[in-house]
């Protein structure tokens, strides 16, 4: 049977139960500070107040890549060390990563609307994030398509690692494609020359969102472990039914035929 080793996850569950409240509290506190700081941050002389969108856009864009990195490490764990928690970590991260990537796209296009006059521009960065988003969705579809989690885990791990290798290539090609068509450079979002008054709230928000991801990820991993436990218990239940019915076939049969007769 492909039951995951239950000893390790059990210890992991105990750890999670202890750590989660603290993590959640830290996330809330840091988010509050970050939100306050971004609220009081001054307006940009060029972009005005819309620069505030950056404070959620950039952390989400950062997370969209960070989560893929986490999944890649987990995939290595699946393929190389065959660690049972690695599958769980990779699976639990995918929907969260997709959600953050979606937010990065959404806030990016809301930021772009005042700047470009259109919600969507085939700008190199946004386009790369869009492709990343599609890859997240594909990965989630892969997890959903296969019923046996162990088999799905290996396939997903291969795909994640291939994606990790391919992402820079995709980014490079998209950049090249973009400059080919649009020599006039589009406004660069969140360029490196950032004023301290923007940098600090941005950093706080980035850390807060990263903590938020860690919290959600741990909680989702716990759910996934429980889900696998339910699954393996159901399989045990199925294997025991044959056993019990051998003992109980006689009397039950009588009651059923009686029921069928009266119906």
């Amino acid at each position: 049977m492909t039951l995951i080793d239950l000893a390790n996850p059990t210890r992991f569950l105990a750890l999670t139960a202890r750590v989660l409240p603290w993590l959640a509290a830290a996330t809330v506190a840091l988010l509050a500070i970050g939100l306050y700081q971004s609220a009081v941050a001054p307006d940009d002389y060029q972009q005005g107040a819309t620069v505030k969108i950056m404070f959620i856009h950039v952390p989400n864009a950062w997370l969209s890549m960070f989560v893929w990195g986490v999944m890649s490490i987990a995939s290595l764990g699946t393929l190389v060390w065959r660690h049972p928690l690695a599958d769980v970590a990779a699976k639990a991260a995918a929907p969260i990563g997709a959600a953050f990537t979606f937010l990065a796209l959404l806030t990016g296009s809301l930021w772009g609307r005042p700047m470009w006059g259109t919600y969507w521009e085939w700008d190199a960065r946004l386009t790369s994030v869009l492709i990343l988003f599609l890859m997240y969705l594909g990965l989630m579809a892969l997890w959903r398509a296969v019923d046996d989690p162990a088999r799905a885990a290996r396939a997903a791990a291969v795909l994640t690692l291939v994606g990790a290798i391919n992402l820079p290539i995709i980014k490079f090609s998209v950049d090249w494609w973009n400059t080919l068509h649009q020599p006039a450079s589009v406004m660069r979002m969140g360029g490196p020359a950032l004023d301290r008054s923007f940098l600090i709230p941005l950093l706080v928000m980035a850390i807060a969102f990263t903590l938020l991801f860690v919290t959600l990820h741990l909680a989702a991993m716990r759910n996934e472990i429980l889900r696998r436990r339910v699954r393996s218990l159901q399989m045990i239940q199925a294997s025991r039914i044959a056993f019990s019915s051998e003992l109980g076939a006689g009397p039950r049969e009588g009651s059923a035929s009686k029921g069928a007769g009266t119906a």
Partner: protein
Amino acid sequence: MTALAALIRRDIRIALRVGGGALIGVLFFLTVVVLMPFAVGPDLALLSRLGPAILWLGALLASLLTLDRLFMADHEDGSLDLIAMSRTPLELACAAKALAHWLAAGLPLIIATPVLGLLLNLDMVATGAVALTLLAGTPALTFTGMIGAALAVTLHRGGLLMAVLVLPLSIPVLIFGVAASQAAIVGPMSFGAPFSILCALSLVSLVVGPFAAAASLKHGLD
């Protein structure tokens, strides 16, 4: 009536559960549409001109590719035998299956259209027009595609063969679907004429599809 409702409910349930393919169709649609600008370039004016055509092609391919296993799965596990023997006419059962497929795989395509319209720089009116034509036209795609799915059971082959069989049948739907959306966006034709033809095509396929599929299935059950 309960029989058909039960069939629709079961098919939707399977499509949405783990292993079901309903949402993969939307993802395919999304991917195909996102690929287009890489081929034609990110020029927004060009994209908005091609937008309706791109969306229609994407929806056409997505709805046909997910149709592949409409009857095949039921054939492989023996359900189709029981469906053919039941007191429900096979034509109605086929129609119910196609309807369930459209609800689970076709409707999400239409819901995704506004988002994709945004990517292709379509304005509100254009997006609305494309969504409306898709709403009227995708039932025709599903119900003609169903014939191919039934033939796939008869021939014991699915996949590309089915696509090759069905794609020519869906040309009229494509013509009038794109024509109606273009008419709504740039004119000069009126929206009404191609749109009513599109609706007529859907209605015809609603009638013809189930009969043709059932006829094909009846000979394929050995």
